[in-house]
């Protein structure tokens, strides 16, 4: 349990996305896009879910009202976070729940391991929890000799492949059924080449059933923790959280401190938004309420900060704590859909991950706020109205201030600004470009240094700029007004022949 475990050489066995000092989204995305068939399939799979979400949202006339309500509840809760957390703790303790507080990932892992060791646990079943993923709990427990089995089907698939989830709701969305078939053949002994989803799902079910039966403890995440009642709510589509905690005598629920909501009455707002936003379902198949341990059993809740208080103290990024982890921003994000979740190199990928991850480690995740065309679709799809794309924009400023934007980029922007502050210099530069570019041989224009030109033509270079045409037009109009001029107005070149209109 001593801290040096975290720095032991075995640390390298944690998911690969945690070992590189600095993530380069563009490079990883480029590799994903290189397999065009797969990238297109990934895009279409997620767009299918986005459209399902649209239909589900449209089915509620009060959709926008619900979003506004959810946003207000979250803003209020985050403002009085300490109050509601303490209320939750008191009420949970009254129900017989043991409540723990963890300042960071290490402390969270130590607490969980401590509880497990106290009970002599060897085998753990775990339902989906992005928090434990964020804390790298699995490799930590495994290093201490425990067997940890993820019981969400998608999570189990990526766990067998020793990959991190690529999406927070659909952890194996980057894999095709053939990939799953191969993985199961290798690890679960299914028939070689079998990729029938029914067959594979049944195999996984059989395999997981054994794990459930043998488990000494169940770990779950938390979707909502209710301050007023002291209970926690876990939403799954597979019922794996329920199975995982119904059999063993020990249940540990791990949650980020932002999962708190004030009252049981607020739950309806979020439950209605969550599944519709996530997968287009009216509600998750299982929405399980845990209000205290079963008789003769133990229930623990671990409240984890791990950087959240710091985000809360920031006026710019506080609203990102409202996130209910529905994944809608990922499904709608045109960049996420085409670059895959692993390209983000962070536990939470996509738009919300690109806000949360730099808050944890700005240097490591400095390219993420730039992995965005600022289209704003995430902001409009977000069920709790987080202004995602504005926060991404703000992150770029923060990163530039921290000098985490490449110096070449910062210098070129300074130079561009210098030119643009002087209209004569801008006009001159433009003119030179328009004169020069058409004269250059193609090989000089289109080479590996021109990222624009790899798959795109450069814009046409018109002989005159608008400001030049404007002067001519004005002069012609003035002379037309002079009576001495003979030319009839109808023939005046009010539309100087050039460029685009051909």
């Amino acid at each position, binding site marked *: 349990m001593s801290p040096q475990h975290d720095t032991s050489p075995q640390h390298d066995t944690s998911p690969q996305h945690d070992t590189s000092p600095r993530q380069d989204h563009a490079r990883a995305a480029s590799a994903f896009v*290189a397999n065009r068939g797969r990238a297109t399939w990934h895009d279409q799979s997620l767009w299918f879910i986005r459209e399902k979400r649209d239909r589900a949202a449209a089915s509620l006339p009060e959709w926008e009202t619900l979003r506004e309500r959810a946003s207000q509840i979250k803003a209020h809760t985050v403002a009085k976070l300490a109050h509601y957390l303490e209320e939750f703790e008191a009420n949970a303790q009254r129900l017989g729940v043991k409540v723990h507080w963890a300042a960071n990932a290490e402390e969270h892992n130590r607490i969980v391991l401590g509880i497990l060791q106290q009970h002599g646990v060897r085998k753990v079943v775990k339902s989906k929890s992005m928090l434990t993923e964020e804390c790298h709990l699995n490799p930590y427990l495994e290093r201490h000799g425990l067997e940890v089995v993820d019981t969400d089907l998608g999570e189990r698939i990526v766990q067998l492949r020793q990959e991190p989830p690529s999406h927070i709701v659909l952890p194996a969305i980057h894999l095709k059924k053939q990939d799953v078939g191969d993985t199961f053949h290798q690890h679960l002994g299914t028939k070689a080449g079998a990729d029938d989803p029914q067959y594979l799902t049944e195999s996984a079910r059989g395999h997981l059933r054994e794990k459930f039966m043998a488990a000494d403890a169940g770990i779950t995440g938390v979707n909502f923790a209710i301050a007023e009642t002291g209970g926690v709510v876990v939403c799954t589509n597979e019922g794996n959280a329920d199975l995982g905690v119904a059999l063993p005598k020990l249940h540990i629920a791990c949650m980020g401190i932002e999962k708190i909501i004030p009252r049981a009455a607020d739950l309806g707002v979020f439950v209605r938004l969550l599944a519709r936003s996530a997968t287009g379902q009216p509600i998750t198949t299982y929405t399980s309420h845990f209000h205290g341990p079963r008789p003769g059993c133990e229930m623990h809740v671990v409240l984890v900060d791990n950087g959240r208080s710091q985000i809360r103290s920031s006026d710019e990024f506080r609203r990102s704590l409202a996130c209910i982890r529905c994944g809608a921003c990922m499904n709608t994000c045109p960049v996420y859909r085409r670059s895959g979740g692993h390209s983000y190199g962070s536990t939470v990928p996509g738009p919300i991950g690109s806000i949360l991850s730099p808050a944890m480690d700005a240097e490591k995740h400095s390219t993420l706020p730039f992995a965005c065309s600022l289209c704003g679709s995430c902001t409009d799809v977000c069920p709790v109205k987080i202004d995602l794309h504005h926060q991404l924009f703000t992150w770029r400023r923060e990163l530039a201030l921290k000098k985490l934007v490449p110096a070449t980029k910062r210098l070129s922007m300074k130079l561009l600004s210098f030119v643009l502050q002087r209209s004569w210099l801008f006009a001159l530069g433009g003119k030179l470009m328009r004169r020069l570019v058409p004269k250059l041989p193609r090989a000089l224009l289109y080479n590996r240094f021109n990222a624009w030109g790899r798959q795109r033509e450069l814009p046409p270079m018109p002989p005159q700029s608008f400001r030049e045409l404007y002067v001519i037009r004005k002069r012609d109009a003035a002379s037309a007004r002079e009576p001495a001029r003979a030319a009839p107005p109808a023939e005046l070149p009010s539309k100087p022949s050039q460029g685009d209109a051909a």
Partner: protein
Amino acid sequence: MKVGLFVPCYIDQLYPDVALATLEVLERRGLQVEFPPGQTCCGQPMANTGCTEAARPLAEHFLRHFAPYDYVVCPSGSCVSMVRHHYDEYFPGDTAFASLKARTFELCEFLTDVLKVDTWTGRFPYKVGLHQSCHGLRELHLGKPSELMNEAPNKVRQLLAGLEGLELVSLARPDECCGFGGTFAVAEEAVSCMMGQDRIADHNQAGTAVLTAADMSCLMHLEGILRRQGQTIAVMHVAQILAGRPVPQIVAGASALVQLRRAS
């Protein structure tokens, strides 16, 4: 009413006819329009890259050159959004800026909201694919984004719908980003181009003959891909369609350098 014509830097240098068409559209409504020659750029390239301080002098530059006008009109939702959403930090509590901001409009919203134009008259007998540029759609609310479940009129569509013979095609994804995104187009070249290619595939299946948008930057990116692929879809800014420009002749397979469409 004195209108200041706010021409995005790249339109000034690369697409002068778009600015000219905007000028003509406004003049057709009987407005007195001026192009303040001191203007250059709104500063969006710098701000979007995080170089906020490099954008500040350009915001001040904008205020200096456009303050004297009753209205400022620009054929780009993105540049107007820059002024409307990102200039506040440069001018906290400045009433002159607040007033200018309230008077700055994208062309289509100026026509529909300020001039109260219901329909635009003219003839344009083509199958038109409307690319709904993100900043115009989601930051200026020129229409209702598919994510939102409220009602809002589509200002660009409304203007185009008035043209005789014009048929707006139905896209499978009516408002997905084209992938331009300023420096994103270069920094994330692979994803940016895939996004653009997917947009074009959607227009192809919908039968677009003329691809249009209220933002030339999206069209610059899409046109760059179209020409590289040798496709014959024509590209026109909304202002050019409203101004009655003919559809440009496209030589399939020709590079932009070959089909320079010289003046003479």
